[in-house]
Structure formats: C-alpha cells, structure tokens
C-alpha cells in the first residue's frame, strides 16, 4: 500500500463511503466543490445517488427526503450556502433525521473570499437554526481526520438521529497531502436502530432511551415525518407538557452523551504552565509552535486539540486546564469558541489570539502570543 495524495474533501468523501453514505446532494461552491466531484467518482459506481441541487436549500432537502427513505445522506457547502440550509437544519433536528453536513469554511462575512480559508462559522453551525437546540460539530485538522471524523459523523448521525457537522476549512478541504490509509483509524460502522416489534409510533422512545427507533418512508409500515411540533405519534401537538418533554429529550440525547464522542488530542508537557486550546487547521500551527517553544526556547506548553466542538466537551477542557496558569485559545476568526472556553473555565485566565485575514495563523504568531505572557 502506497501513499495517497488527496485533499481533505476527497478524504471526507472516502470517510463517507466507508460509513455507508449512499446519497449526496450539493450545490457547487468553492471550496466545497471538489467534494461533489469526489462523490460523483464514488457513489454512482457504488449504487448510490449524487444530485447537483438547484441551490443549497434543495440540496439539503433532497438529503432529508433520502435519509427518511432509509439512505445515509450527506451535503456539503460553505458559509454562504450554509446560510441557506438553516431552515432545513432545524427540520433535521426536529424530525430527528440523520444527516451529515460538511461546511468547508471560507473567509466571510457574506460571500467573502471563495478561495481563502477561515473558521468563521463555529458559532453559526451551533446556533444558526431556529429553536436553538444542540447539534454535533466535529472539526478535522488534516486529511486523516477528514476520513475518520466523517465516518464518526455518520455514526453519530445514525446513533442519535440528528444532523452532524464536519467543520472543515478551505485550508483542509483543498490542501492536498500524503495519507497512508493503513494508519488511518476506520471506525466501525453504526446503522440507525430499527423499530422491530410492537406498534410503530414514529417518535416514541423506549423506556430509559432518548432516540426513537427508525423505520424508512417506503417500507411496509406507513411512516410519518413532520417539521411541525409533534407528539410521539408524529401529529401536531399543542399540549405544553408534551412539547416541553420533546424539546428536552432532543437536547438531552445530544448533550448528555458528549463524553462518548469527545474526540480530542491532549499533548501534555511536563512543567507546562500554559495550555493552548485549538481546533481545525490552526491546530497544526499550534503543534509546530509547541515543538519550537520546547526545543528552542525551553518553554514547555501543553496543547489541547479539540475535534468535537459541539456539544462543548466541558470535562475534557476542565481536565486539560487543571493547574494551568494561562489558557490560550487560538482561532482563525475574531474569537468564537473562546466564549465557550471562558464559560467552562470561568475561574481561570483565558486569553485569545485570532485573525481572519484569509491567511493561516503561523507558528511564529502563536509563539509570540505565548511569550507575551
């Protein structure tokens, strides 16, 4: 087995295929377009469907239909397209429709710069849908992560019946790098749990569980799906206790399980008094910075690379920051995730360094920020 030379978007396509994705719909947008190309190379030959939607609203809509009809589905876009997906994202949440959404982020605001990277959608992915219910967001740092986290993303979407975001970036999605597939973690594939016995009630959960068993539209038993506020039977409900129980369950099923899918790398350094918290492509600069700080400046710093961003893996943050004099959050934006870190580490000093100029944050900038003390 040799080395692959692929970009992050191709690696996402491979991870999706590994996870059993059989439906992909997207509207062309730089820097996500090569994902459409990659899926076109893979899916039709594998018996799957690729649609080029008339817009991003349609593309996610096609995916929701296909997912409800039993196929694992994915869409991919960038910030401007994600804006259009918003209404259907909340449908995926409300209707508990498994779906993977890849956001290959680019410089914003607005149409911004198509060929420049940024991490400006980190809070947008979490909060950019009506109702404010939680979603899962995973952030790759390289092509290997793109494969593994996309496969994990499908598994989580299936397990919890929810939308899962892959928070990519032009600098990952369109940067090609060598990948040894033999060293890549390939998660075991999980499928949504089917309803097996008794009367099928579309949103009824079993005692002690928070995710309703699934049946596809098109099977022998008629299935109801609705974007309206519904009771377990999938019909509109106006009963306040039923509505409250439903939204609390939708929140609980995602947030209560975060420890089971808190992906991260913690590189603890002996004698470190500073913890750098970072995600996405910036993690690579931080890693280089940490190595240089230790090697050339005899300054040990610990590094926490978060790959699960939402729900916030609070326990991971607390453990990593324990005893640290200073926590430095570095982001390719004007300060988004730092708000979560400050919330979780309320009693600790949390500093921020970031920029959103279309350029990568360099190891040198991070080193200077560390030295600023």
């Amino acid at each position, binding site marked *: 087995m040799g080395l692959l*030379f692929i970009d992050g978007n191709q690696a996402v396509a491979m991870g999706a295929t590994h996870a059993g994705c059989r439906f992909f719909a997207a509207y062309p947008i730089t820097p996500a377009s090569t994902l459409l190309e990659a899926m076109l190379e893979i899916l039709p030959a594998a018996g799957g469907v690729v649609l080029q939607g008339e817009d991003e609203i349609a593309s996610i809509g096609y995916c929701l239909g296909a997912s409800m009809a039993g196929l694992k589905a994915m869409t991919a876009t960038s910030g401007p397209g994600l804006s259009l997906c918003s209404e259907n994202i909340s449908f995926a949440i409300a209707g508990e429709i498994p779906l993977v959404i890849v956001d290959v982020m680019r410089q914003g605001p607005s149409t911004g710069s198509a060929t420049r990277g940024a991490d400006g959608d980190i809070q947008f992915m979490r909060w950019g849908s009506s109702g404010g219910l939680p979603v899962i967001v995973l952030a790759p740092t390289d092509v290997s992560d793109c494969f593994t986290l996309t496969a994990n993303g499908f598994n989580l979407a299936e397990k919890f019946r929810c939308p899962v975001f892959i928070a990519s970036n032009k600098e990952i999605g369109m940067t090609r790098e060598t990948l040894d597939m033999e060293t890549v973690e390939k998660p075991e594939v999980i499928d949504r749990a089917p309803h097996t016995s008794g009367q099928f009630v579309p949103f009824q959960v079993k005692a002690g569980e928070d995710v309703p068993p699934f049946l596809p539209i098109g099977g022998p038993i008629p299935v109801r799906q609705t974007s309206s506020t519904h009771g377990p039977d999938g019909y509109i409900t106006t009963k306040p206790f039923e509505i409250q129980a439903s939204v609390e369950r939708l929140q609980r099923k995602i947030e209560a399980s975060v420890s089971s899918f808190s992906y991260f790398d913690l590189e603890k350094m002996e004698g470190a008094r500073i913890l750098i918290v970072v995600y996405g492509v910036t993690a690579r600069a931080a890693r280089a910075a940490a190595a240089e700080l230790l090697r050339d400046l005899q300054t040990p710093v610990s590094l926490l690379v978060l790959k699960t961003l939402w729900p916030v893996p609070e326990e991971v943050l607390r453990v990593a920051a324990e005893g640290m004099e200073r926590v430095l959050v570095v982001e390719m934006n004007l300060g988004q995730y730092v708000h979560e870190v400050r919330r979780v580490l309320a009693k600790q000093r949390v500093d921020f360094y970031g920029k959103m100029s279309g350029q990568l944050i360099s190891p040198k900038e991070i080193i200077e920020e560390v030295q600023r003390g």
Partner: protein
Amino acid sequence: MVSLLNPDRPPVFCPGCSHDRSLKALDQAFQKMGLEGSDVVIVSDIGCSGLFDTFFNTHALHGLHGRALTYGAGIKLAQPQLKVVVTMGDGGLGIGGAHLLAACRRNLDLTLLVLNNFNFGMTGGQFSCTTPEQASVASGFLNVLEKPMDVCTVAASGGAPFVVRASVYKKELSKLLVEAISFDGFSVVDLWGICPARYLKRNPLSPKDIEAAIMELPPFEGVVAANERREYGSHYREKSDGESAAPDWRGIEKAFEPPVKARREVVLLGTAGERVITAGTLLAHAAILAGMHITQKNDYNITIMRGPSVTEIIVSPEPISYTGVEQPDVIVALSEEGVRRGWDLFSKVGAEGRVILSAGVKIPATAGQILETDFKVEGIKKKERALAALTLLAKSGDPVTLEMLREAISQSFHGKRREEAQNVLERAAEIPVDARTQSK
C-alpha cells in the same frame, strides 16, 4: 377498493373549502389504482395544503414552506417503487419556484398537486404568485402591481411532460388524478379552487367563474408532447450502472530512495495557463515516489484562465504539521502577477535557497542563487513553463531527481498528455543554466 383516508383524523378544512374536494378526489384516485398506504407517500409543506398528509393513512412527510418537491425527490430516488404525491399551495409554489423549475427539467416521477386558491389563506389572505391583479386581498394594493403567474405555462416551458389545469369542481377529477399519478415522469396538476375563509370574503368567485377563467387560458390537459422523455430515476440508474468501478485508493508506491532527507519548501509563482498547479502536483508525486510526506496548498483567483496561480509544496521526511511556507528553499518565478502574490517570500530565501527565474520577470531582493532562463528563446511555450522550471530544479537532484520526475509523469498522465510532458522534460533538461546571485 379501500379508502386511504384516516378515519381517526377527519378533514378540518373550513366549511366550503375546495381542498375538501381535492382530498376526496385524491383518495378516490388511490382507490381506483388499488394502492395501499405503504405504496404512497404524501409530501406536503406549509399552508392549508400542508394538512393533506395528516388525513391519509399513508407514508407522510410534512416539511418547510415550498420545499416539498425536494423531499419528494430524495424519497423517490431512494425508494423508486413509491408513488410520491406532493401537495403545495400557490404560496409554496411561489417561495419554492426554483424547485418547481428543477423538477420540470429533471422529470423524476413525482406528482405535484398545486392547490391553487389565489391567496395565502392561513396567514390572513395576502396575495400569492397566482393572485389576479384585480383581486382585493390583504396585501393592500401590492397585488395590483404584479402579474400573476400561469403555473401550467411555466411548468410546460420548464420541461414538465405532463401538465393539467383543472377546476376542483370538474367532474371525474379523480380520473384526472389517476392519469397524473400513473404518468411515468413529473406531472403537474394546477387545481383551481376557492378559499371561503379569506379570498371569497372580498372576491366573488363561483365554480362557474373558475371554469370560465380556465377557458380563457391556454389549455393544458395532460401530456406535453414536446417534453416527453426518459424518466429521471430509471435513466439515472441506467447511467450509473454504466459508470466505471470505484476509484483506486491504492496510492503511490515507493520506488526511489530520497535524494535529500531534509524538509524543503517549494513555491511556484505563475499565471493561470502555465499549468502551475499541475506542475506542483507532479513535483509532489515525484517526491512521494521516494516515500516523502507532502502538502500542497494552492492560491488562485476566482477567475479561471486569468490571474495569478500559486502553489506551495512542502516536502518532508517527517509528517508535516503547519502547511504554510515560512522560509522557501525554492521559488519558481514565472510571471510578475505570480511574483506580486508571493513578493514577501523572496526576502526569506536563504543563501542556500534557489530562485528559478523566467527571464524578464522582476523580483524583489533575495539572498538565494538565481537560475535564470529565457523560456521563450528556448522554445518553451507558456503552458510548458512550470514543468520546464521543475525540470531545471530536478537537474540538481534536490528535492527530486529527473528520474523521479520522469516516473511521476509516466504514472500521472496517459496518451498524448504523457508524450507532451515527457517532451517538455527532455527539452528542458538540455537547457544550460548557471546559477548567479542577484547583482546589487
């Protein structure tokens, strides 16, 4: 013949609402076709038409305003045996106009019922895309300013192969719906009716008026001959069966020992059309043949055949963390607009570094050795220059050798493209180049 209506959930339309008739006609159509609840999915969206799915004991999906056609298409492609009936009002049609056009062009086997009652009933009787200019509605004078849309004309010109305009009061409406649902392709049924709660309050409208109004418009009674063609789903499955096998993920096997076991940062600064990024990928491929780790990061404008084109390649015996170029070992300067994009990099090149310079291109101060070539004089065309420059680099054996570059070409290209590339390499390999430092 069993009704598919849900006895536990009787219709809740306003007294006199024409949706009631459409609902019953649809149920009769299902019965005539001998369909069971599991054979059908009703896909609806927002507004009174969005209640349809709740009255049937079938598969059902109720979603966002105007997007029902998109859900229906996803379902149909996943479950081709299903009869997919999409219900929308004139409101949903307006907000989801792009989806109507896409569905017409695509010709997937869906049936769209437009329950057209000329206003937004549920939100207070505002005007929709089908409200007549002379109607009095809850949007003040605004509807007077806009021309109503003829659903059928739009659908037919959009490519729908089955289009019908009918009054809900038409006799044998269910027969018409059977035809539409049975049609193998996208069928549009523009059903005109009365909204007693809103529209009728301000606008006298009788079944006879509707009949008369329909008579005045171009007739649409079913198959649109000019649009008849293959149904999308079966066509898609046929085409995808013919697709080649899954892509090759075996990767590039190691075939050389690395000539240099050190990290190298190489930047190509050129212009669209010089095949800069392709050359960068070839360099990467050549280095991978020696088992090196590579990142390749490109920078270009959104214009395709104009503007700067930049590729940054890092070659390393170790895994690469940061993908940015900080201290280039090699800069290939092919054009001034490319050089302007990478202007700041030149001062970071050390005395050991190299700049491969296309004659006449102005560059800023640099400590690196300069290898200048007049590609024009050497007969190297614009699209050949990036590869020719790489060949000059490979002659030094750092970071790749000519042999590695030859093998990369042979593995990357086929046929004529391979011959062309090989030809460029061999010609460029003959170009004598002396290194010099920048004159002060």
